[in-house]
């Protein structure tokens, strides 16, 4: 048990079951900071929706819902892949770990390609960030999430290289777990973005 877990794990339940928190405390503080940033984006979106109800009523209808739906499936699948990578390293299956991590990277690249198609699709219909307040907040939120996916994809690629070099073992894989937790956070945020932007009207 790490120092972080010793600090956090108090109470009678801990004595009965073995507690394990993936990653390190630094990663979790970073994840909470990122979530706070997204919370402000969500609040800004809701406030804008309150002040410009007409634009926020008409805006989602003009969006490419298929692109949003496809990216939801891609991110859910990427989370599945990275979860399997963590399970594989816990079994000491190094080759499988690398394969699952590369699948996650593939999913991250696919997300970016779908997003590029969506932006092109918008542009072909004359939709830009300056169209109205809905599309301004849409692009702001989407581009921010897109940046997180790019950073996450690069991080997972880095862990794949390290895993291939034998850096992670059954007993020592905090870095891999931290990167995986960050990736899951990106997926978690998208789960809320998808209905907020595309589905709830």
């Amino acid at each position: 048990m790490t120092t972080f877990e010793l600090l956090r794990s108090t109470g009678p339940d801990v004595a009965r079951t073995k507690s394990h928190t993936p990653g390190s405390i630094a990663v979790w503080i970073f994840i909470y900071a990122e979530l706070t940033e997204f919370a402000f984006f969500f609040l800004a979106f809701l406030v804008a929706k309150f002040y410009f109800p007409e634009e926020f009523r008409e805006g989602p209808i003009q969006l490419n819902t298929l692109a949003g739906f496809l990216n939801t499936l891609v991110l859910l699948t990427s989370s599945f892949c990275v979860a399997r990578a963590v399970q594989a390293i816990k079994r000491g299956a190094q080759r499988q770990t690398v394969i699952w991590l590369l699948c996650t990277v593939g999913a991250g690249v696919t997300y970016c390609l779908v997003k590029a198609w969506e932006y092109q699709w918008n542009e072909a219909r004359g939709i830009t960030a300056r169209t109205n307040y809905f599309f301004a907040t849409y692009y702001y939120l989407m581009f921010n999430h897109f940046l997180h996916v790019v950073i996450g994809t690069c991080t997972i690629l880095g862990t794949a290289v390290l895993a291939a070099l034998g850096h992670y073992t059954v007993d020592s894989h905090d870095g891999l777990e931290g990167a995986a937790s960050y990736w899951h956070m990106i997926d978690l945020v998208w789960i809320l973005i998808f209905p907020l932007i595309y589905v709830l009207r």
Partner: protein
Amino acid sequence: MLQTPQNYDAGRKKLDRTNLVWLGLVGLTLLSVLVGESGPPSVMATFFICLIVLLKGRWIIRDFMGLRHAAPLTRWIITGYFFVMTSLVGIFVGYLQFTATQ
């Protein structure tokens, strides 16, 4: 460490649950799109979609993130965040839909 039959079996059991969770998440995503696209916006549809979002978040946090057996504080912070944000979105959108129909 060598892959022994014991830890290989343990891995297989976890993989089975991971498969089911992934299928469940995909199914719930389809369901939320169907509900959202099937008719005019309504408070009931918003409530139902938010319930789906909460369930999806719970599965990701507990099963994919692996926080099911994590230190309670770590799990509560992220679970609480997701519950509060989803509820806020649901209440806000539901309120706007309700006032628009009055």
